[in-house]
């Protein structure tokens, strides 16, 4: 049997995000400063350190010092992330619009696949959008019908760690903290590149209302 400490250490070392949704016990463990300090030496041996984003809601392992090899890994990872941003954002907006409350997708949300599917089926615009999203390389769906596309998209998102499926029999997915990480990344890009994305969206809405 592995201790809780060992379990969480191996989670972190295998590159997973630990949040309240994906692993509540582990998250609570890491929340305690003492426990985190206990893990740190183990991580440091392997040139890793405990990092958190989204105001401490998500934990993951980051490199302690960056050599050429590490930079290579990070660059590769970043290119992948950057190329998958558009599909992910489109998916987030689709889910938000198709859900009744029009609330953005956040950590801990429960997404019911059946409800989502019926809304998307009834709205041709959403169905088109879904088809477009499912054709992106990261989702890579070849299915012609909506059901298959939606399932493939959700499956891929689960593989990538954005969603978890607590009960394998039910088509209910929970949004993990990795989505918060995604928001943070977009926010960061927005600020660094000074894109003022919010202002752009606002301006577009106002122009729309004038028309």
């Amino acid at each position, binding site marked *: 049997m592995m201790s809780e400490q060992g379990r969480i250490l191996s989670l972190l070392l*295998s590159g997973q995000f630990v949040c309240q949704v994906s692993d509540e016990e582990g998250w609570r463990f890491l929340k305690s400063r003492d426990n985190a300090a206990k893990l740190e030496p183990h991580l440091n041996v392997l040139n890793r350190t405990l990092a958190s984003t989204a105001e401490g809601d998500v934990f993951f*392992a*980051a490199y302690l010092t960056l050599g050429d090899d590490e930079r290579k890994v990070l660059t590769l990872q970043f290119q992948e992330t*950057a190329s998958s941003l558009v599909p992910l*954002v489109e998916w987030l*907006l689709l889910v938000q619009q198709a859900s009744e409350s029009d609330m953005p997708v956040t950590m801990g949300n429960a997404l019911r696949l059946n409800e989502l599917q019926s809304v998307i089926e009834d709205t041709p615009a959403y169905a088109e959008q879904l088809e477009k999203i499912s054709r992106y390389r990261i989702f890579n769906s070849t299915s012609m019908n909506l059901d298959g596309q939606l399932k493939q998209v959700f499956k891929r998102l689960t593989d990538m760690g954005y969603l978890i499926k607590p009960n394998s029999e039910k088509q209910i997915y929970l949004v993990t903290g990795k989505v918060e990480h995604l928001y*943070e990344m977009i926010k960061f890009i*927005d600020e660094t590149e000074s894109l003022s994305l919010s202002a*752009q969206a606002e301006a577009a809405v106002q122009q729309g209302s004038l028309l």
Partner: protein
Amino acid sequence: MSQVLIQAGNRLLNALGRHSELIMQAYVNGSVKEADHSRKVLEQLVQLGVLWRPDPQSPLRLKNAVRALLEGSLQDDRSRTINTNITASLASLRTLAEHYKESLHHNRFNEAHAHMGDLTEHVYQLTESLTNSVRVLFGRINNEFGYVSSVEAKIRENELAQGQVSDLLQQLESFHFDELSELAGSNRELRHLLVVALQQSFSKAAQELSVVQARLLDLLGRFREFQGRTRLLKGFLLHMEQQPDFTPGNYPALSQVPVLFNQSASLLAPAAADVNQVEHEADYQMIVSNLTDIHRRKPDEESHKAAQEIEVAEQGSVSLEKDPIHQAVDDYFCDVIDSGQPKSALEYFAEHALDFDQEVWIYQVIGGYQSLDENDKQFFALDAAGQPDKTFTGNFYINDVTLGLR
């Protein structure tokens, strides 16, 4: 007077009961469809003050008092009005208290009693309206303004509620308990009403309102965050549409890589099985037995066919020798069979001058007899010679055994 009042009240309540459908329709829809009901009924309800017509062109609507009654009893979260007019109520309380004191002073007890009743009613009305206001606010918070759908509308509703809370808090400041207690003087009943009852509801309301305010601010923050997120996502898509070739800078190449993009690669691979670990043997066995399909590699036959010299030699023989005492017991049995006469073990022992311990010998004979199989045992009889213990019954000392043929 009171008889008339009671009759009028009964008439009103009966009318409400009789026309409940009409009234509920008016409550839900906001106005009455006059074409669906007889003119007489409508006129009666207008006369009783249940319905009214705000201006000649508009349809009949429910009077506010009836609407408030329904909202209060049904705990309908559509009601968002909050009675914040505490100052006026306090002023009327003060006046009534003065009336009461004056009539007591002039010994007009009947009048005083009536004033007291009025005053009680007013005080409880005030406390009820306070708790009601707080309840309405909490109701709205609890369903997170679920009655409006868009985040913008929620933010507006939240702002309205915050305004109401601060109004209420301002009004609560107009409670001056020192003045009230002075007004009540030494009169026990007045003190109970004006000081105890009011103070209790005041402190409760003030406490709950502070909680409400905190929660409202919390919610507002969340709504604003939602709004910000939606804008961020939409803005990003818009940006990507306008500049499809946009790529963010290569942040990992910066000298200080932001934590967000510093995510270490997966390091752990599954461990391998250690077949020399004895403790795991059972688990391995389980795993292997659960395999449905074993992919055996075809043995590389050629490589194992190295020439080998074959040595042919005689195998060493292994002989099993019996323990001498066993041999002796076997001999003793054979002797009895040969002679056909019973013979005691010790006699045989003395005859053959055996050199074992006597007791061991007897034990071995008994053991030899017991270890025969059932068929062989039937040929022999074993008698024990000895005497019982002198002191304790049930103990029997065996000195010798006699073996004979049956």
